């Protein structure tokens, strides 16, 4: 077995073409043991393709992919034994009961009779499936089904866990529970997960890899990425004033680049203020309101999220909003 210091995933110059369409183009990255890495990108960015190649479901067109020091094509079975993979949409047999299914999967992954029972009970506990062990998978709710998928990925104690869009289709409560489960896996396991929801990755991962049209744009920790955007946040203010005086006053505000006004009730205006990079508009705006005698009832700085990072690194060619939850 490779020593702990060596990266568990090493991808070098990976390219995958489907006919004339290039899904993944010259991608290189590596993942150290114990990391939780989020692959992030809009639909069609190549996340699933990379995961399918890593889990030996399909072959790369060119490039080398190694998991725990083994080539995914040359030593496919050894690699598969080390990976717990949950595909997109979590396909599972619906005509089996939960415990039955997990035992079956454990046996399929090479565990012995006793061990498969022991592990099945363990992951049932770990993934909170205790109350549905005898239920038919087809009758389970989406949240429970997703947990069964995760339990299946964990059952043979793999070194690497690959989860393709693990929280898709879950309600907010289920997402929170699932996120906690995943965060609990870090350290002991290495987790590679994909999502097109920025917030999701930001919450769970220790490192983010942003993909766009089959290429890696950025790879860094969520904190560093947000720090890159430090300062210059948009400010939202709710002010009661006459429109002409408001517009004239705001024009005098130092560092303001753009201003959007939306009328609210009782003569209030919601102002979306975009500053020059590095400028905090709030003190200036407060002083202006006092001088002008405006009533100021809200003043908020919007902190940068990965969404802004994404829009920045893709050069503004961000995906359509609805794709981002």
């Amino acid at each position, binding site marked *: 077995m490779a020593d702990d210091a060596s990266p568990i995933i090493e991808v070098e110059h990976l390219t995958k073409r489907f006919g004339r369409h290039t899904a993944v183009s010259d991608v290189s990255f590596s993942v150290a043991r114990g990391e939780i890495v989020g692959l992030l990108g809009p639909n069609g960015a190549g996340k699933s393709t990379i995961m399918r190649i890593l889990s030996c479901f399909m*072959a790369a067109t060119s490039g080398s992919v190694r998991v725990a020091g083994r080539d995914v094509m040359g030593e496919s079975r050894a690699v598969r034994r080390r990976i717990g993979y949950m595909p997109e949409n979590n396909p599972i047999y619906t*005509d089996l009961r939960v415990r039955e299914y997990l035992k079956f999967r454990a046996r399929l992954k090479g565990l012995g009779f006793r061990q498969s029972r022991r592990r099945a009970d363990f992951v049932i506990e770990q993934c909170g499936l205790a109350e549905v062990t005898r239920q038919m998978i087809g009758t389970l709710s989406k949240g429970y089904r997703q947990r069964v998928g995760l339990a299946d990925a964990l059952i043979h104690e793999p070194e690497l866990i690959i989860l393709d869009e693990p929280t898709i289709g879950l309600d907010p409560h289920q997402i929170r529970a699932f996120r906690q489960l995943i965060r609990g896996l870090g350290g002991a396991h290495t987790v590679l997960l994909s999502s097109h929801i920025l917030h999701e990755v930001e919450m769970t991962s220790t490192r983010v890899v942003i993909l766009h049209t089959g290429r890696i744009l950025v790879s860094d920790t969520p904190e560093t990425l947000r720090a890159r955007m430090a300062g210059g946040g948009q400010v939202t203010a709710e002010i009661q004033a006459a429109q002409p005086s408001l517009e004239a006053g705001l024009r005098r505000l130092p560092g303001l680049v753009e201003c959007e006004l939306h009328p609210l009730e009782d003569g209030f205006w919601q102002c979306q203020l975009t500053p020059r990079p590095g400028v905090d508009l709030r003190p200036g705006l407060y002083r202006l309101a006092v001088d002008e005698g405006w009533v100021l009832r809200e003043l908020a700085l919007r902190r940068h999220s990965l969404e802004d990072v994404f829009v920045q690194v893709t050069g503004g060619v961000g995906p359509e909003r609805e794709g981002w939850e």
Partner: protein
Amino acid sequence: MRVWHTLLRRELGGYLLSLTGYVIITAVAFLLGVGFTLVMLAYNGDSLTVPLTELFHSTLFFWLILLVATPVITMRSFAQEHFSGTYETLMTCPVGDAQIVLAKYAAAFVFYVLMWLPLLACLQVVHRQTAGGAPFDWWPAASTGLGILLMGALYLAMGCLASALTRSQIVAAILSFAMGLTLFLLSFAKAGLGARAGWMADAASYLSMVEHMEDFVRGVVDTRRLVFYLSLSGLFLFLSVKVVEARRWK
């Protein structure tokens, strides 16, 4: 081997936990019953010199069951997994492609054997109801059984290949039915050739499943037949494994 056994149990469970499995068994039992009744009625009229087993295969029921039931049995093996996406979870397990194909094939074969079991009951009924000894010999009955198994082995292998090729169960069933029907109809190619002797007539008779079955019901177990069915089954299974492997390279 252990993994293969686990897979086999799962596949067989797939047949026996679903309604389709029981529908197939019921339909086949019904057809067998009707065929058996017709044979019995033929005996009732006047005394026939033909043995019971020989008469049975000449009814259309045997061929009907072989041609229709085998595509229905095998259509789900791969096509359903492709369709539901479970193919991906299956293929990313540390299991060899050949093991998966063989497990699915073996499960289909075991189910096929289960499906024919009512035939034994038919024989038992005749055996019991005949006064003064058996109305048929056990050896030809056994060789008929062997013939049924061999033909089934080939047809199920064709079905496996058809199912591996597509993600639609209907397409898989139609494809394997077409292959099976073609092979069956070759039996009648000889009649089309007329009295001409020569290699074509030889080939036609080598391929003729009806002739093969005639041998089997008479108790003749010819090694050429064994080689024919076993090698063709092997070929189709080999092709299935290759199709499954090829999916990885798509």
